[in-house]
């Protein structure tokens, strides 16, 4: 804390350097109340001369900061002495429109970010060992699992991204058809599954449905 005779105007009024005129006026009123002649609270704490010094300093600070041009000069002076940063200067925004509501929609998924980082995604229908599995006419749950693990994606990630329950994908991979929903819904689930691993969705749906129809499920 600097001694009060050396404080800059903002420190004297105990306000931030970007205070608005309203804050300046309020701070000045409060402090004037504290130091004024018939204030009981300050009674006998200061001699008459000390009080005069303080009150006149307060007045000088207030009159400088409340005047737009004088304040600009004073701020320039402070910036020159390195006591204030250029960016901290008060800007009158009272005439600018103020957004009252945040109208931009921010759905849950957007705030969360994608569950699967894009770096992990890699299409592996090329010449990898998975490709031979993928090209079969019939895709079993075990085949899908193989492809998924090759892609390095967990069921939790798929569940998070697709918003389906994780149990559905488990049933899918374990070929437990009795736990799967009707075909119309199943197609959607398979599609999300395929999209998450970045393989061709139509092919997955057709092959898996064929696998179900062949009745090899447990």
């Amino acid at each position, binding site marked *: *804390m*600097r*001694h*009060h005779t050396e404080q800059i105007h903002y420190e004297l009024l105990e306000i931030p350097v970007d205070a608005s005129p309203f804050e300046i006026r309020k701070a000045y009123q409060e402090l004037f*109340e*504290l130091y004024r002649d018939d*204030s*009981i*609270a*300050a*009674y*006998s*704490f200061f001699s008459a001369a000390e009080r005069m010094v303080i009150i006149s300093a307060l007045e000088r600070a207030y009159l400088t900061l409340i005047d737009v041009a004088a304040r600009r000069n004073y701020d320039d002076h402070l910036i020159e002495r390195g006591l204030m940063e250029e960016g901290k200067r008060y800007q009158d925004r009272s005439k600018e429109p103020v957004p009252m509501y945040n109208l931009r929609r921010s759905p849950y998924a957007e705030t969360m970010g994608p569950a699967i980082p894009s770096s992990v995604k890699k299409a592996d229908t090329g010449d990898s060992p998975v490709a031979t599995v993928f090209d079969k006419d019939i895709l079993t749950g075990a085949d899908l699992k193989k492809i998924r693990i090759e892609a390095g994606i967990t069921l939790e990630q798929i569940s998070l991204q697709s918003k389906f329950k994780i149990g559905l994908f488990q049933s899918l991979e374990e070929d437990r058809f009795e736990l799967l929903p009707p075909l119309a819904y199943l197609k959607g689930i398979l599609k999300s599954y395929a999209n998450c691993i970045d393989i061709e969705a139509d092919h997955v749906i057709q092959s898996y449905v064929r696998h179900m129809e062949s009745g090899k499920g447990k």
Partner: protein
Amino acid sequence: MKQAISSIWPIGGGKGGSGKSFLTGSLGILLARDGYRTLLIDIDFGAANLHTMIGLPHPEKSLSDFINKRVPSLEDTVVETPFPGLFLISGAMNNLDVANLAHEQKMKILRSISKLSYDFILLDLGAGTAFNTIDFFMISDTGVFVTTPEPTAIENIYRLIRSVYFRKIRQVLNVHNFRALAMEAEEQNPRATVTNPDLLLHIIKELDPEKGDILERELRAFEFSLVVNQCHRQDNPNIGPLICRIIQRHLTIKMKFLGNIAFDDRVHNAVCKKMPFLDLYPYTQTALDLREYGNRVAETKCGIRDSMVPARP
């Protein structure tokens, strides 16, 4: 005996009759009822009356027994009070020269107090700014200043706070061998004596920033509290916060406002009946204020400063 660190709260006020003993007694009763082992020590030498305030007209032992070496330790002068958990060291009676305590005796009492083991030790100090009063503020980081919202009391409370502050600075300067620095500061600006503490601190900081920082840190470690007692309805309830603000702005110490205690005529009745006000009139605004103030004190339990108690030579 377990050696817990006691919270020592000196309670002082510049002016007589501002309610120091009343507040000490009530606070002691409240803390004891909250389950804290609390000791009241009456240090208003020569005008002791705390024992009467808590309904104990004839304490059989008192502080003068210790000063006159009739008992070996301060612990032996503790008497029980009608309230469970509340103990008293009376400052009473029979010794006319106790009012003018010699320095060595005072130091002996200070050392003994800091060795006592209670949850709270409340010191009821006398009015005025005699060294006998001020030095008991040196024992702790905390302390309560009691004032009333009248210019006379406020004038005296400022005088007391300045004296305590002045004494603290002196003490810090002595402990750290800053004497030479203080002399130099005084040479540079004749107004920078310890009586003008903020200017002195300022000049010391300029001369030797490192030691100035130590001094400032030491001073900032103290946290005093203010209570405005006998607040009438027509009084401005903001006087307390305003006083704290002035002190924080101009002296480098923390000053916390603990609250206003409403004025009540019936306090007089309670004192005359020698019964605790809190029991006689538990549902008054004053009792409500007292309980709130008691809770705030209980919240801020804090330790004593061992370094500040002068070691035995």
